[in-house]
């Protein structure tokens, strides 16, 4: 049960960081999420993101920061097997679920819905 509490807290804190970027630094949501993704990638490069996932579970995997993290992860896993080329070929290895789900669902949503204004 501690897991839920920490998922809530850590996830919430990441969102607050995003909110501060939007309100204080006056960034658009696009800029904000982009910065967070890059942050996630860098944190994983430093080896700090994985412990955070162990600690907060979905609190660390659901925010967009984890997208950067898994991109690096995919690249690293492939690089271990195939050397430096793997950095390019493996990037989308882990994240494919998220991206393909988003593409597929969005496409069908475009067929089924119209904007509500």
């Amino acid at each position, binding site marked *: 049960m501690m*897991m839920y*509490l920490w998922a809530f807290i850590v996830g919430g804190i990441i969102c607050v960081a995003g909110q501060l970027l939007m309100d204080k630094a006056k960034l658009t949501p696009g800029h904000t999420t982009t910065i967070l993704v890059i942050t996630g990638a860098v944190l994983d490069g430093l080896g700090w993101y994985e*412990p955070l996932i*162990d*600690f907060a579970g979905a609190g660390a995997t659901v925010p967009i920061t984890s997208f950067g993290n898994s991109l690096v992860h995919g690249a690293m896993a492939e690089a271990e097997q195939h050397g430096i080329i793997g950095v390019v070929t493996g990037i989308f290895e882990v994240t494919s679920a998220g991206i393909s789900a988003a593409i597929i669902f969005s496409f069908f949503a475009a067929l089924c819905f119209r904007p509500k204004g």
Partner: protein
Amino acid sequence: MLVTMKVFPLRRILFCFMFLFLLVSCQAGDYPKKTVTLNEETVQAETLIQNIDPVTSAVAIHNEKELYAAAEVEHMARLRLESIRKEAHERLTDQWPEKTIFFSTDKKALLELRKLNNDLAFKSVSKKEIDKRLSKIEEYMKG
């Protein structure tokens, strides 16, 4: 727009959260502890892991050549899960240098090991099935 704004006064949301936490904390009961142990070695392995400080519970199953073990740790210790895994792995290797050690803190591996342990205690499980389930658990541990 109008409707949703009315549904979301902050106070009501706060209330919902308090309620949720209450609900959650009520459910946080104990996990049924395994009482039956198979053999000396299993107990030995489990206590060995539990002696590592932040581990709260552990489960282990021996095979001829392998040792499968999983553990749950205090939540605050999850930030250094990697080093705990390494330590447990080292201790187990020291104890059974001739065996291949599989150790994990994955929840799924832990669950499945417990289940298998229970089944071993109460039912007769064929050798083939044990092997199958253990190799499955090995898969989970990789993750």
